[in-house]
């Protein structure tokens, strides 16, 4: 797997590169700003790009803008946005439009080699990745009339994995059950929450996230 790392803080960038190389992933370029990132993506066709949400010049949403641009112009390139923000709003900004091959991961996860590599693999496979912490927070939100109370603990578990972007296969592996069982759970959850069927695993992430945020 060939990836490009876009991160303006050298210390962090080096750490990421080190973790990736440890895991046997080839880092074809390290860049520190969106311009260089887009150049590398268009000329060297990496498999995926790891993008820091805050980059020069304004250190606001450059990472999000660059991620969207890559999704528009190079749909084959997976994008994983690294962020220090827990706000689901940022994740939505990144995923909206092109949820497939896109991920939003909290920065502190990146040095956990297993998590990072897993996220990259999932993005490469066309899945969507949403940081579990964000999903947990959304699920734990206080509501006046909580529709989630209608779900069984198992269904809640499935729901959170759907929100993290896992495919049925991924969920089945994670929960050590058959894919068919997962399918049944998902159908049940969608039915109970009044959500629209299963429009493909990455689209349903958005549906679930939107539901949880509403």
């Amino acid at each position: 797997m060939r990836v490009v790392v876009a991160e303006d803080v050298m210390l962090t960038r080096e750490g990421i590169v080190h973790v990736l190389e440890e895991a046997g992933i080839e880092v074809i370029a390290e860049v520190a700003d969106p311009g260089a990132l887009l150049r590398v993506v268009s000329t060297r066709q990496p498999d995926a790009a790891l993008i820091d949400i805050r980059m020069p010049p304004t250190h606001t949403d450059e990472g999000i803008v660059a991620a969207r641009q890559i999704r528009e112009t190079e749909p084959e390139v997976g994008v994983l946005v690294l962020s220090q923000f827990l706000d689901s709003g940022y994740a939505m900004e990144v995923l909206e439009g092109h949820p497939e091959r896109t991920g939003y991961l909290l920065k502190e996860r990146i040095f956990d080699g297993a998590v990072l590599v897993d996220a990259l693999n999932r993005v490469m496979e066309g899945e969507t990745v949403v940081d579990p912490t964000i999903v947990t927070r959304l699920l734990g939100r206080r509501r006046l009339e909580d529709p989630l109370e209608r779900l069984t603990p198992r269904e809640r578990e499935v729901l959170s994995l759907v929100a993290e972007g896992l495919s049925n296969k991924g969920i089945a592996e994670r929960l050590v059950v058959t894919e068919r069982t997962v399918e049944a759970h998902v159908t049940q959850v969608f039915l109970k929450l009044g959500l629209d069927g299963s429009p493909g695993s990455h689209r349903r992430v958005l549906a679930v996230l939107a539901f949880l945020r509403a």
Partner: protein
Amino acid sequence: MMPETETVGIERFHRLRLVPPGLLTLIGIAFLYWVARGADNSVESTFVAQSTWTLATAQAAGGALLLVGLGGAITRPDRMIGLLTTGLALAWLAPEVAGWSGAPLWVRHTALPLGTMFTPLLVVIGLLYPLGKARARSDRRLVKASYLFGAAMTMAVGLLYQPFLDLDCWRICSPNPLVLFDNPDVSRSVIDLSLWMAIALSSSFLWLALNRRLARSQHQVKAPWYVIGPIGFLALAEIVHASLLLPGLQFPVDPFAQRFMTLFIIRAGLLIAVGFGIAWDLIRDLRIRWSLAGLASDLEEGASGSLASILAQALNDDTVEVAYWIPRLQRHVDANGRTVVPSPEPGRAVTMIESSGTLLGLVMHSSKLAATDLEREIGSAARLAVDNERLRAELLAQANEIRESQGRIVSATDATRRALERDLHDGAQQSLLALSYKLRIARTEARRAGSEDSAAQIEKATEETLATIEAVRKVAHGIFPSILVDAGLIRALESLRERSAIPVDISLPDKRFSELTEMAVYQLIADAIEATTSGVVDGVSVSGTESDGWLTFEVTHPNLRVGYALTHAVDRIGALEGSVVFTEAGLRAEIPCE
């Protein structure tokens, strides 16, 4: 009690000043009567006896000028125009009076030289109209010259002209009882001189007037065309008339030749036009003054709001603007305390309103209101009200100033907090991330070395580091919600809801507003939610709409009250000219959002 004594003084002064125009008008009425009589029986010596046209126009011109003169003297005793117009009427009628054979000789011999004053008076009116003040030094000089030469030539004609010895005499040929010495050459020279004077004064006036029109100096009270135009043509007619009467052209002159008849009627017609022009201005001036008379009480009642709107109504001029000079702020403001920059435009005049030497304000209005001296018309009582409005404007300006500075402070605080938040993320948090990374490497190495205890401890340290990262994130978010700037109000409020301990229902227009507006709204809603949280389970509902550039929203919760916790947020809304009211249900806020 200064203003009162001042008013009384002016009134007494006015009454005294009505005596001369009154007397002159009586003489004028007598002149009109004599001219009418002359038309009956002085075919040889008066124009009015020649035709009904000459009689009608001569009488109409004289009558109109007398009326306007008296009107001017009564309504505008402070200006010379009324008296001068009456004088012009007398000078116009005088030659015809002199020509009436039925009048007493002393009357005829007094009337004849009076006619010499016609051109000088015409020129003076042309120069002093409408305010009774000369506008330029050259004007003042010509006014002086007109008075001087006019008076001198009138005396000369009265004391040196002996019609008895004048072969060309026609109006009156009887001996002048006042004449100092009988000499035909002197007599003839006096008449010629008076004609030359008329030519000289008329030409000088025309030259000045044309130059002024061409130069088109702005922002000055200008004489209106409908008065200055006829006066100009009259001056031209005087030149033609005097030239025709000068010797050497055609001698002896037939006074009733067609060209003289025509010229007489033209002059009379132009005089009527002058009379109408002045009357028009007088009526307009009166109307404005009547409207302005109620200014003081209108202002005190605060009737239609501001001086500007009352003036606009009184002057029938929608473009009226009033600017108050605020010395402390070193700028002009309008009645609402907003900064205005008085920029003179073509066709606009500026009137300064002063009170005992201090500039109260500027009134910018159409320069067509030439005949009314606004500065004078805004009387002492109104001036007090104007000063009140100025003080009010000053207070409002200061309030605006404070609000603006409040806004600047808020912006500066925001910028600082944002920088702080960024420092935390890019500094502390990145260092902690790097630390967690090093700890992971250390743990891996400890494991590799078989030191499970160390590995466990390092693992614990890693977890603590991650917890610290989480803590730093919370602090950073509290200092400044980045998502507000990055993704907008709605997204930021959604995040707020994700973190909130109580259910929050949000329904606001999903669009971006200015950063300051979004900050203010966010802060108020965040603080309101924070304030309601303690020990309550009820949800908070936030709903709002945007219309006409205003975002109106309500935060509903039973516990929401006026409280210290919201002061800062309410101030922020206020700094943007918005407002917050606390209601039974919670609070309602309005804020401009364009």
